[in-house]
């Protein structure tokens, strides 16, 4: 397979093109954000085919309800990742998924192998380890629970047995550490 040329636009250009419903907007949208969104979705649902379906649903929803996005309120990615997270969390919490998961050990193993074979991790993954090291364990666990397990801060508080205020502060600290790291 020849490597496809990826299309990249500035966020403003992309938003404009999406509003005009241009074909190139769909392509750029996919090329720029599919990996980031897929990373989030996959970590929440932890199953390749389901994650692929949700990624597709996410793009359909972005495409169809794009008029609901306003740049003044936030970045495009924030809006999109919340769509992806909500779809993923809905799926994980649905009765079907939980029942399915009870007897899926073997399939999960297959998916794991599949994942190793077909999913290309970004080289920055090495950076993630460093990143994770820069966070304190309690910050990391909160970030992981919220971001990759789809917990609400209320659920995190219950899970860890700590007050809601503490959850919020730790989350804030964790994100501040991230900001330092990225700067």
């Amino acid at each position, binding site marked *: 397979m020849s490597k496809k040329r990826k299309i990249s636009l500035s966020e403003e250009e992309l938003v404009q093109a999406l509003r005009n419903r241009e074909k190139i907007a769909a392509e750029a949208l996919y090329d720029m954000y599919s990996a980031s969104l*897929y990373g989030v979705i996959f970590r929440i649902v932890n199953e390749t085919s389901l994650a692929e379906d949700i990624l597709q649903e996410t793009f359909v929803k972005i495409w169809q309800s794009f008029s609901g996005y306003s740049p003044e309120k936030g970045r495009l990615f924030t809006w999109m990742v919340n769509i992806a*997270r909500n779809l993923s969390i809905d799926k994980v919490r649905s009765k079907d998924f939980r029942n399915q998961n009870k007897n899926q050990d073997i399939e999960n193993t297959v998916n794991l192998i599949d994942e190793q074979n077909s999913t290309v991790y970004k080289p920055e993954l090495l950076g993630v380890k460093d990143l994770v090291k820069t966070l304190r364990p309690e910050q990391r666990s909160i970030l992981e629970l919220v971001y990759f397990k789809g917990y609400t801060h209320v659920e995190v508080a219950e899970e860890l047995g700590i007050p809601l205020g503490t959850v919020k502060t730790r989350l804030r600290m964790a994100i501040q550490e991230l900001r330092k790291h990225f700067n």
Partner: protein
Amino acid sequence: MKDAKAYIETGILELYVLGDISHDEKLEVEAMAEQHPTVKAELREIERSIELFAAEHAMEPNEDLRDRILNGLLTNFADDNTFAPSHRSVAEEAKVVTMTPPQNNFYKYAFAACLALLIASTVVLYNLYNRLEETNTRMLALSAQSQQYSNTVSMKEEQLKVFRDTSYRVFNLQGQGKTPDAAMSVAWSPNHKKVIIDLDGLNLPANDAEHQYQLWAIVDGKPVDLGVFDAEADPKEFMKVMKSVDKPQAFAVTLEKRGGVPQPTMANLTVIRAI
């Protein structure tokens, strides 16, 4: 109005970015961001961090997925009236895979075809069966006929053998008493001591069910029983081999009780021939 810095410190902006707040809180954050540039700037920073965090955890989805998803979007896209043509030059046209409509009808047609084939086969089989039956009947008739012919032929051969065999002597027996017109032929071979009567050329008055003709040979002046026969013989029988006799002086036929009697009833003498 809340103090911007304290508001930021509550950590609500992070929850806003993560989409983990109530509708009222959401409106509140948006109002705050509207009023306080610092809040807005903080929000953008948090968003950027989260975005970079996600980018670091990015996973490339399967390559096939790109076409699948883009086709899905662009199919809807084509239906969409608000579709606007691209103003930009697209370096590479998106690969559009023509989606063949699902072949749901295939099994329907296949089933119908199978059914039609089954019916056709049944009709053909039924016809074949009938013809086979007919052929079997005809074959039985033919084999019976051929059996009859072969019987006839073997009988004729037997007869021919008698004619060819020079040792046979043929005697024409003459009508006597009540039946002056009666006549029949008896063949006798001194070599084989065999006696054969000709049933085909027989000319005797018909006998009834209680009576039969009996052939006698006169040996040393005494009558010797050579067996019985009917005047109206089975049409298939042309001749009949009688009991053997050595040195007969005469052949005679009397009409007797069915099955024959030990001594001839001379009153019923039909034909006779002395040798």
